[in-house]
């Protein structure tokens, strides 16, 4: 047997387990999902019925769909806030302080433990009567001698989304983004700061004239990735803390896909919605590819 044939056979053997799983759980389902998006199917009453673009038209004309899209985008307010926080923390940690490792560990805890348990904890934090958030607020009021009363966080349509945003800022601020920023800051050439010093720049100037442009690729990368993630986010916390309520005010796109597919058994409609989501994400991926080089200043 020729050695190249032997190598190819070996390669297929190495590839086989992963490829089989990839075909079964990724590529074939993707194709299947695209077909389903043009059908109506409840899994029970017979085979899927081809309906053309009906699912997509129904979606566009459904005000609830747009409301859930709005919720998803609203909740992304956490992205710029937590990014700014991450950058400030990274700048502080970049001061060659002793004990940075301890701080880094502590700041990473909320990210690492994110999950059902932590969302339950935050449900307690936001509880109206004896939640810690409202106790803090009342305590502060006592201190200032004004009667302060915290809102009915998770049961109030106006406050449920801000509550989730505060929680996700807490969760993300010291996590992945801070570590990426810290790595970026450590890569800024020292000579540039020295040159800026000769020109008599103060810390503020140095940040905007040197640091910010140099780390802009990181900012761009984190921003785009967070937006892509943001479109797919919101199921776990909302399911545990608000069940998507009150009045659908914390239901995000992914939550709606879950509801349509696994609560109402609208498989075709849910697939159509998933493909809409894909198109939005794809758009942002294209933006990432096209624009990345523009944010590199050096």
């Amino acid at each position, binding site marked *: 047997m020729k050695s190249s044939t032997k190598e190819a056979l070996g*390669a297929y053997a*190495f590839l086989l387990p992963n490829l089989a799983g990839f075909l079964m759980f990724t590529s074939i389902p993707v194709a299947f999902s695209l077909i389903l998006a043009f059908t109506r199917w409840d*899994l029970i009453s017979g085979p899927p019925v081809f309906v053309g673009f009906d699912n997509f038209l129904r979606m566009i004309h459904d005000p609830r769909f747009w409301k859930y899209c709005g919720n998803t985008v609203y909740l992304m307010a956490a992205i710029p806030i937590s990014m700014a926080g991450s950058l400030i923390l990274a700048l502080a*940690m970049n001061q060659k302080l002793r004990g940075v490792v301890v701080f880094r560990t502590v700041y990473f805890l909320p990210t690492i433990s994110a999950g059902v348990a932590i969302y339950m904890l935050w449900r307690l934090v936001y509880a109206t009567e004896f939640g810690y958030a409202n106790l803090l607020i009342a305590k502060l009021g006592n201190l200032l001698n004004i009667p302060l009363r915290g809102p009915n966080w998770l049961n109030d349509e106006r406050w449920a989304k801000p509550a989730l945003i505060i929680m996700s800022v807490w969760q993300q601020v010291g996590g992945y983004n801070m570590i990426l920023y810290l790595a970026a800051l450590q890569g800024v050439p020292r000579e540039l700061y020295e040159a800026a010093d000769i020109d008599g720049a103060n810390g503020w100037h140095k940040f905007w004239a040197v640091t910010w442009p140099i780390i802009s690729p990181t900012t761009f990368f984190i921003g785009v990735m967070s937006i892509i993630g943001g479109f797919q986010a919101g199921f776990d916390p909302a399911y545990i803390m608000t069940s998507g309520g009150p009045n659908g005010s914390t239901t995000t796109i992914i939550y709606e896909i879950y509801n349509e597919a696994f609560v109402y058994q609208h498989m075709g409609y849910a697939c159509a919605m998933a493909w809409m989501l894909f198109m939005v994400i794809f758009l942002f991926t294209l933006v990432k590819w096209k624009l990345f080089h523009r944010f590199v200043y050096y």
Partner: protein
Amino acid sequence: MEIISPIRLLLIHVNAEAAVGLVSPVASVSDKRKELRSGSETLREAKRRAILISRMQKLLAYLLLAGGAITMVLPFMWMVTTSLSKPGSFSMWSVKARWWEGWLPLSFEWKNYVEACKVVPLAKFYLNSLLVTVATTVGQVATSAMAGYAFARLHFWGREKLFFAYLATMMIPGAVTMIPVFILLRHLGWIDTYKALILPGMFTAYGTFMLRQFFLTLPRDLEDAAKIDGCSLFGIFIRIILPLSKPALATLTTFTFMGSWMNFMWPLVVTTSEEKFVLTVGLAYFQSLYSTNWTLLMAGSVMMTAPIILLFVFNQRFFVEGIKLSGIKG
């Protein structure tokens, strides 16, 4: 001679100190002496100011970091405090309480933990989570490493096209595949089985991609030498590639483990009976039964969170490296 700006000298700390040593020599009685001395005084002053500023900056950084750290830890303290409180009186930190109360547990009701394990089969959920997580992780790392090796090193027909297909699917959100995979598993009669919990998470394009990228950075010399010595492809993979790739394998293992342990939506979709619930779904189920029994709920939360925190504290290195790896790649 042009005098170098004292500030310029200060910038590089070591240089500045050397400069001070140079510029303050034993006095001579010339005109230049005055110049030199005043130069050295401004230098000293500038140096002192620079040190002061740097100290102030550090102090500010410390204050900021400490304040932030308290905010990060506080909710965890509430979780532990609540889990150890007497049922019904967990909110010790009422408006009337003194400021030091309620931050640390005032009582240690360990029986909350026992109770939490009794009202729902938390131990069973735990074992399920462990089984699913370990199987998913081992499976994913093994299949990804094998496929990554084939993509990185071996030549075969269709390699580039296939790799492109892998890359392309990485953009597709999980929501797209979730529904057809559910339908497939339902068709196979696998709903509410361990297979449904484990298998779909075992094969990812991401793991293959990440390990391929790492394998490409390994030097080929060792492999060539092994080939000449008659080592088989599998032998090269096991004896050379894998040992050299420990950091990347550890990173993938850590991330897969975490992701699988925390996974909520998929287990929620494919399990229906208590015996198959993993910890995340089990806790949500627990909450649906006892939605305001905070002491027990928090005891459950502590039990879910603690192993992850321990794992993280002892494996930090891999997290940090892994994050940097993923960040640079994009």
